[in-house]
């Protein structure tokens, strides 16, 4: 299978500090790929290079090549806004806009000039259903999104990302601010969503990576130490550092 995203000889710098070193990785379509590793190992930085979110940070620099469907995402012809439509993102803390549930979901579409009520209604219903939130909120979609629980807000943020019909969804610790039941709901949702989307998730919970991902990459000090099938990484890793980390013997 041809990888959806290819990363070749990639280095990333914050000023003079080389935060990511010689990253080479393939990310496959309609799979969940998890990045694990201790704090400060570069996994979130790496995630943000995949939709050029690091462009917002001054004095940062990327070397090497990252392609999405064989198109270089750092090429001069690429519009980062357009890229982020294809490669959506969900953050650690649910961050709904202080608007209604409905307006949160259609926000991106309206920004892109879609105002047909019928289309927007359909998108709202479809996306709420696909994040398993429809039954819970169908009677209050014109009420403020801030009235929802944390878990519901995070599912709404996923709905908002999906409404733009992305191909890839990046998730930066999407459940770290949620209780265990809400976490399980999001994990279950991701397992359903991977039928249609390529999902890349940064998580501090190794158990979460184990439970839901198809592929896992272990990062340490800006390097990818080991990347492979999740069941192999968690039952028979090749590198001793991976073994030490996943068994809690690290450091």
């Amino acid at each position, binding site marked *: 299978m041809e990888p959806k995203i290819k990363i070749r000889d990639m280095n990333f710098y914050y000023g003079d500090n080389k935060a990511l070193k010689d990253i080479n990785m393939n990310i496959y379509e309609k799979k969940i790929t998890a990045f694990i590793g201790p704090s400060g190992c570069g996994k979130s930085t790496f995630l943000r290079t995949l939709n050029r979110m690091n462009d917002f940070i001054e004095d940062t620099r990327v070397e090497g090549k990252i392609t999405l469907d064989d198109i270089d995402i750092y090429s001069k012809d690429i519009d980062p806004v357009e890229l982020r439509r294809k490669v959506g993102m969900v953050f650690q803390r649910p961050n709904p806009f202080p608007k209604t549930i409905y307006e949160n979901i259609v926000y991106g579409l309206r920004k892109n000039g879609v105002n047909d009520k019928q289309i927007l209604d359909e998108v709202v219903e479809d996306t709420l259903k696909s994040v398993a939130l429809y039954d819970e909120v169908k009677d209050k979609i014109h009420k403020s999104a801030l009235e929802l629980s944390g878990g519901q807000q995070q599912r709404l943020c996923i709905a908002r990302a999906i409404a733009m019909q992305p191909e890839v969804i990046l998730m930066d610790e999407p459940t770290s601010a949620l209780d265990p039941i809400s976490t399980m*709901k999001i*994990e279950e949702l991701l397992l359903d969503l991977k039928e249609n989307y390529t999902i890349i998730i940064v998580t501090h919970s190794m158990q979460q990576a*184990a*439970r839901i991902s198809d592929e896992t990459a272990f990062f340490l000090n800006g390097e990818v130490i080991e990347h492979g099938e999740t069941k192999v990484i968690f039952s028979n890793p090749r590198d001793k550092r991976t073994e030490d980390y996943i068994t809690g013997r690290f450091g």
Partner: protein
Amino acid sequence: MVREHYSKKIEDVKHKVLRMGSLVENVIEMSVKSLKDQDTELAKRVFTEDDKIDDLELEIEQDCMNLLALQQPLAKDLRTIATALKIITDLERMGDHAVNIAKITLDIGKEPLIKPLVDIPKMADRAQEMVKLSLDAFVNESVEEAEKIAKMDQEVDDLYDIVIEEVFKILSERKEFIKQGTKLLFVGRYLERIADHTTNICERIIYMVTGELREIN
């Protein structure tokens, strides 16, 4: 339902254990029928069926290892996976005993049987039924059924005693039958062991349901 994907994987393991169990029932029946009918072709088929049992054991073990490594099973889920891992070892061993019986069919070949086989097929019937019922108890998660099945083991032991007595009696009169007679004693022993393995399965079912580890019989 939350964790539907995970629950489905546990259900898949249970289904595979059932499939393995029905293959085992089948080889027990085939092996003893091959002996009774002196059907060497049927005996050879026991070997190929046993290969399927062995493959399935490895597959289920791998599934269980993946669930343990990736899903952090707890409480009853954990006990179910541990039970599956133990049950498949017993089932695999039962398959090996059926193979041993099939080998004896091949050894005896067309040499006339020293006696018509009556109690050995009865033992096989009982053992086979115990396997079937124990797997029903596994699916139904029934402690009551498991305890009842374990009691059936006594019937198999009693039949085994009859087989031993009978063969000893023949051998005391006809020394030239010693070779075949010994083989038939082994068949009895294999069937008795199969029934014992079923008792082990019943113990694990009780553990799976109640969390209590105890010996029956």
